[in-house]
């Protein structure tokens, strides 16, 4: 799966139809979160462990040369030959020389992602060497001629029937699709590979600088055989696997098996420190010799990343694949689509950018929807979506946006009047706009794919045109609240906008609505176009600073995030920096603000008597802003009975432009959400994010028509007497 010639749309279409993949991944994604949680129950303070891993890895990458030097010295002292390889070709050269010098003909491998990254096996085969993968999953995909689709479970995309076909071909007899039988067939077939190999090649889960030892974590036991039977052992590992001390390995081992497969420990964990004894047959007799041991430290782009302030984070990855297991997009299409040459998912996109190049990255990075679920589980606490956004910014800096998108962003999004007149035009049903190429890139404009989701309609009268009748200045205002509606609430959900105003006025605030406010800029910055995002930021700053408000309220967490980022994206501009900070600091998310105010007034109490409501945690709300408790308290304060749905914090599939551009992916994600809502038996589905509301509303209309969609503000407003 290389960068050239990828047609991601076609690939998505194919994988969505691939039943084996959908079943295996789908079932796994269903059970994984609970299984992981159960495995973590006796792990101690998980957050402290994650932080400890992160700090240990940061400390290592910050002095990577020193740590690598120590590792090399300690390993060498004990009789290991260490080779630092700049790239795949350097590895090939080293190993071919070694094989020639020692007469190696047969090689057995246990799993090494670094060797997959450089396509070592095909290279060996081309050069007439016999090489065999011994990890069952790796062997299966080798027989299939596939690439791994998951970092821990490489053959998860195949069914037992497909595997039986590959086995039948390889073993030249009919193999029934019985899993236990097939595993035994593989055991018998591969046993000879271990016993007859001249060389064993393994990866490493970690390399310990303190004593030059490596660690291997496996379930099958193949790594133990690879490091026990052949007279030569070669380790191929990336620099990111280095850790300073022996005790650091304990941190990794606490979370790696638990995150990878929800095991407390894998069947085998092996530490190899220096060359160990091996039995070699000399004539009729076995004699003990010392195994020849080599460690290849692979750079291939890693050391460049180590020097990058942001991307040195990739050294925090312990390759547990937890991030894949919770990713809504990965668990739909797998790693062949959502992945690069070797590495899958969001972390795969980042690794691909550094190890294979930006061209490969750009083929599939859009599949990261920024839901941030991965950031909650990653043992190394890597900001995967953040790094992907940063790579997008760098890509746009390098060669700009696609032409049409660029036109829209530069000409429409920075011109509020034009933008808003287009929105109004859409409400009048001016289809040429809606169908045009141009319009597709605007927020809120949805393509025709509406099978399982109603399209939102642009309101006849946007919120901004209703202001005169809504604004009621309280007699003694307790403060001045400026309302940032965001385009969705303004043009699609003006009724919710009204609810927000009503709740704020009921609290005693004087509410103002700056007419010059425009899109928050999130859909633009998400593509990496910071230049346009800055222009939009300046427009909004001007619009809001005029109002001299005490607080700026918005009912959409993505807008909150965008408004908060103004001070960051304008920090290099002296004339804007302070103004941006002043506005950013006033911005508050609606629910958390209102809960605080209700609390002060003793109104944040369960009242009861109302309808059953289930709450959807918007990704931005829960994981970017960290707000989950307050909306629930408000729902109960509004008299509703709160019932939790399964995976309430799993993405609804909208995520800005993604939900439109990749509607075929967005729909199955939405469908899961619909099922979870339906199963609660609630009458109302509530959330506190306009983007999610549009998506959920559309899904409910078509799939769960009995359930109404409401913003938390709507529930509160209904309780307030006019």
């Amino acid at each position, binding site marked *: 799966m290389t960068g050239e010639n990828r047609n991601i749309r076609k690939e998505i279409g194919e994988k969505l139809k691939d039943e084996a993949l959908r079943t295996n991944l789908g079932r*796994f994604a269903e059970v994984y979160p609970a299984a992981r949680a159960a495995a973590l129950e006796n792990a101690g303070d998980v957050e402290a462990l994650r932080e400890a891993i992160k700090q240990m890895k940061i400390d290592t990458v910050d002095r990577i040369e020193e740590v690598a030097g120590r590792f090399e010295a300690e390993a060498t002292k004990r009789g290991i030959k260490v080779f630092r390889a700049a790239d795949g070709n350097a590895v090939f050269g080293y190993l071919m020389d070694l094989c020639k010098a020692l007469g190696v003909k047969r090689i057995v491998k246990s799993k090494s992602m670094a060797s997959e990254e450089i396509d070592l096996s095909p290279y060996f085969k081309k050069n007439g060497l016999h090489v065999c993968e011994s990890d069952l999953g790796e062997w299966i995909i080798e027989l299939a001629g596939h690439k791994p689709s998951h970092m821990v479970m490489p*053959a998860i995309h195949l069914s037992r029937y497909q595997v039986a076909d590959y086995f039948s071909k390889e073993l030249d007899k009919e193999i029934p699709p019985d899993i236990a039988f097939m595993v035994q067939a593989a055991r018998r077939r*591969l046993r000879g590979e271990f016993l007859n190999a001249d060389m064993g090649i393994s990866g490493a889960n970690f390399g310990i600088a303190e004593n030059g030892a490596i660690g291997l974590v496996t379930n099958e*036991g193949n790594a133990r055989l690879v490091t026990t039977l052949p007279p030569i052992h070669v380790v191929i590992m990336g620099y990111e696997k280095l850790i300073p001390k022996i*005790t650091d390995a304990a941190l990794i081992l606490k979370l790696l098996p638990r995150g990878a497969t929800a095991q407390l420990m*894998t069947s*085998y964990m092996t530490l190899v420190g220096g060359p*160990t004894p091996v039995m070699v047959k000399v004539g009729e007799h*076995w004699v003990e010799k010392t195994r020849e041991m080599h460690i290849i430290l692979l750079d291939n782009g890693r050391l460049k990343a180590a020097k990058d302030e942001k991307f040195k984070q990739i050294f925090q990855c312990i390759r547990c694949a937890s991030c894949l297991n919770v990713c809504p997009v990965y668990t739909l299409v797998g790693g062949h689509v959502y992945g690069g040459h070797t590495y899958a998912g969001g972390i795969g996109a980042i690794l691909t950018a550094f190890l294979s190049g930006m061209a490969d990255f750009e083929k599939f990075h859009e599949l990261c929807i920024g839901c941030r679920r991965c950031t909650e589980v990653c043992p190394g606490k890597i900001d995967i979506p953040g790094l992907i956004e940063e790579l997008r910014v760098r890509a746009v800096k390098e060669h700009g946006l696609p032409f049409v998108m660029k036109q829209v962003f530069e000409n429409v999004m920075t011109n509020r009047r034009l933008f808003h007149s287009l929105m109004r035009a859409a409400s009048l049903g001016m289809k040429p706009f809606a169908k045009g190429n141009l319009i597709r890139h605007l927020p809120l404009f949805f393509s025709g794919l509406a099978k399982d989701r109603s399209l939102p309609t642009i309101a006849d009268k946007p919120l901004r045109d209703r202001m005169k009748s809504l604004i009621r200045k309280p007699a003694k205002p307790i403060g001045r609240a400026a309302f940032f509606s965001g385009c969705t609430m303004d043009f699609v959900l003006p009724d919710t906008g009204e609810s927000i105003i009503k709740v704020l006025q009921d609290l005693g605030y004087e509410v103002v609505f700056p007419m010059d406010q425009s899109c928050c800029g999130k859909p633009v910055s998400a593509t990496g176009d910071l230049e346009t995002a800055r222009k939009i930021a300046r427009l909004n700053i001007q619009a809001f600073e005029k109002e001299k408000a005490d607080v700026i309220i918005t009912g959409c967490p993505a807008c909150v995030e965008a408004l908060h980022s103004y001070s960051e994206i304008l920090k290099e501009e002296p004339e804007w920096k302070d103004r941006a900070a002043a506005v950013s600091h006033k911005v508050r998310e609606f629910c958390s603000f209102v809960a605080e105010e209700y609390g002060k007034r003793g109104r944040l109490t369960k009242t009861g008597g109302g309808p059953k409501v289930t709450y959807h945690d918007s990704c931005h709300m829960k994981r970017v802003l960290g707000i989950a408790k307050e909306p629930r308290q408000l729902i109960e304060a509004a008299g509703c009975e709160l019932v939790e749905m399964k995976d309430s914090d799993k993405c609804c599939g909208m995520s800005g432009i993604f939900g439109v551009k990749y509607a075929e992916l967005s729909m199955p994600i939405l469908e899961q959400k619909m099922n979870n809502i339906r199963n609660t038996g609630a009458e109302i589905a509530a959330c506190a994010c306009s983007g999610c509301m549009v998506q959920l509303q559309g899904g409910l209309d078509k799939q769960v028509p009995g359930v109404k969609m409401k913003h938390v503000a709507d529930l509160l407003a209904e309780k307030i007497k006019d």
Partner: protein
Amino acid sequence: MKKTCDDWRRHFPAGKFGAHLFPEFEKRAKAVSAEIFRVKTSVEAADVVLNLARFTNARKVVSVSSPLQEKAGIENVLKSADIEVYSDQGDIATHAATADIGISGVEFGIAETGSVCQDGYAVESRLVSTLPPIHVAFLDSGLIVPGIIEAFEIISQVFDRGYISFITGPSRTADIERVLTIGVHGPSRFIIVAVDGELQGGGEAS
């Protein structure tokens, strides 16, 4: 026989290990399909192994000796039941791949995970624990540490060079359709014979 450390016991952190952790260890080990026989005496231990050999129709056993096994006289017990037993290095190399049972000692158990820690520096101890379909591990039931962190505190003191393994249940895979299947490349049965306080009266005493 080569070992990563000749005297592991010396490095157990006082007060941080002991037979009181055995129930937790046993629960975790059983949860991952390890079989556990806890015995009070070496005579009982010998019985366990002999019965196992009988029930599995074992003809050939490869064994790397450890103090607990010696005390139980395992090799003689098996031999007198007409089972071939190989314990020389060369014999183990010849026969491990075709043996029915492999026997070795392990250094300690980990309550958190149900793992045992094996000093595998000697190649024969690895051969007997990787190649045969059944691996029997002798463990002193007093030598249980609470968790991975404590295990690595010990390892960090003894591990200059060598080969150390955690073994946690039998060999397994879920590579086909995520269906858990036991016994891929390593043993399909992993049996722990835990002997109570025979040598030093358990951990609390040290």
